[in-house]
């Protein structure tokens, strides 16, 4: 569904991604792990063009997205994103955060959009907060709203950029539970995470990145149970 070919990314002189090849199948949950600065987030952000690709190709459903004539806004509407810092819109109520994009882009009317919004907020367990503002919510609640906001565009896949890294420990679980349910429903997900438990339990594939390369890739059993590469072993030795 998402295919990446020989992806290179430079920030100025610094090469952050040094040739990534990978393919994500529909309904797969791919967890990307690795040390800080390994290029995980940049890799994720290239997939919906939040970062400009220096070289290589990214295909979503066989459409090459890093090409000038591709309508990047249409692609982004199909690929949701959840950020480490939630990035909810503070000047809008929770329900407006969720309904804004479908109304602007899908031209839904307010009644339809709010029905969808309430349905999604119920799904993440926050319909009671629909008319609150983001700053009245805890971090975990905000992140669940952010997931509902991404779902409102009915995306084909969702990218998660360290979704629990900015949360207090006791709130991590509520967000991971929502993500687990999504995975069970068959959502295609790419998750950059430090939650090894989540990667092991929910991931269909686990990708270990280091120094701008994909060092090793496999099922959770392979990566966590029997890692082949020395760097993978060293990293897992430190975090597990």
């Amino acid at each position: 569904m998402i295919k990446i070919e020989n992806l290179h990314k430079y920030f100025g002189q610094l090469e952050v991604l040094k040739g990534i090849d990978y393919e994500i199948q529909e309904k797969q949950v791919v967890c990307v792990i690795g040390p800080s600065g390994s290029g995980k987030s940049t890799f994720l952000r290239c997939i919906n063009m939040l970062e400009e690709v220096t070289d290589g190709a990214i295909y979503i459903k066989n459409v090459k997205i890093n090409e000038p004539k591709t309508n990047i806004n249409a692609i982004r509407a199909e690929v949701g994103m959840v950020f480490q810092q939630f990035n909810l819109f503070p000047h809008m109520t929770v329900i407006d955060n969720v309904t804004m994009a479908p109304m602007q882009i899908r031209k839904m009317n307010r009644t339809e959009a709010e029905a969808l919004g309430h349905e999604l907020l119920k799904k993440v367990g926050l319909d009671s907060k629909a008319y609150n503002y983001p700053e009245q919510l805890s971090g975990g609640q905000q992140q669940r709203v952010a997931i509902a906001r991404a779902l409102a565009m009915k995306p084909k896949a969702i990218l998660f950029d360290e979704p629990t890294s900015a949360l207090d420990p006791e709130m991590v679980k509520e967000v991971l539970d929502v993500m687990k349910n999504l995975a069970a429903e068959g959502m295609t997900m790419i998750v950059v995470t430090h939650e090894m438990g989540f990667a092991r339990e929910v991931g269909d594939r686990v990708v270990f990145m280091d120094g701008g390369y994909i060092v090793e890739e496999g099922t959770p059993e392979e990566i966590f149970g029997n890692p082949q590469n020395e760097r993978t072993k060293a990293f897992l030795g430190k975090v597990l």
Partner: protein
Amino acid sequence: MDIFDLRWDIVWNYRDMFIRGIGVTLILTLSGYFGGILLGLFLGLGKLSTRKWIYWPCKLYVDLFRGTPMLVQILLIHLALIPTIFGHSLGYMVSGITALILNCAAYNAEIFRAGIQSIAKGQMEAARSLGLTHNQAMRKVILPQAFRRMIPPLGNEFIALLKDSSLVTVIAAPDILYASKIVAGASYRFWEPYIVAALLYLILTYGVTKIVAYIEKRLSNSYVPRKAEGREAR
């Protein structure tokens, strides 16, 4: 003739001039300010553009108008620019308003630029990641947040402009200060007319301060109070 023997009746005799002066000052300031907001918004957005042919003219404009005295700008516009374009003067009002708009726009451009830049980068990214175009993201997400932060500096700019509008006396626009000059020239009394001018400006700026404070309070930095209530009923 000294400070212990003030003759307010002299000023009172010229009250019609002062009332007209207040009118002229307000018209000049309000036109200059709102014209300056409109032009300043475009200049501010231009200064945020990544396209060099948009950025550089906007930057040049702002640097030019912020870096030269308004008095010089007023004289250049009234005595040189407008007569050169139209063949004759269009009067102190046109020159005065033009000068105030052009000057105020340069300062407002910086307020808009800074206000927009102060909104966290993640807001734009979140909006774009949902599929919004840059313009949609600006309109729905960035500008509504930025405007709140711009209110205090925009209020300051209004007060500064109100006071700076007194510079148009140099092209004989009959504003508050001009009335004082006439009274002083006719009566050879200086305390009374200029104290009155100072008081009138003070009253006007104080009024504006109060209005800005009220707006600021209503749109306080927290998004939570008041607005959240009664929303369910909709």
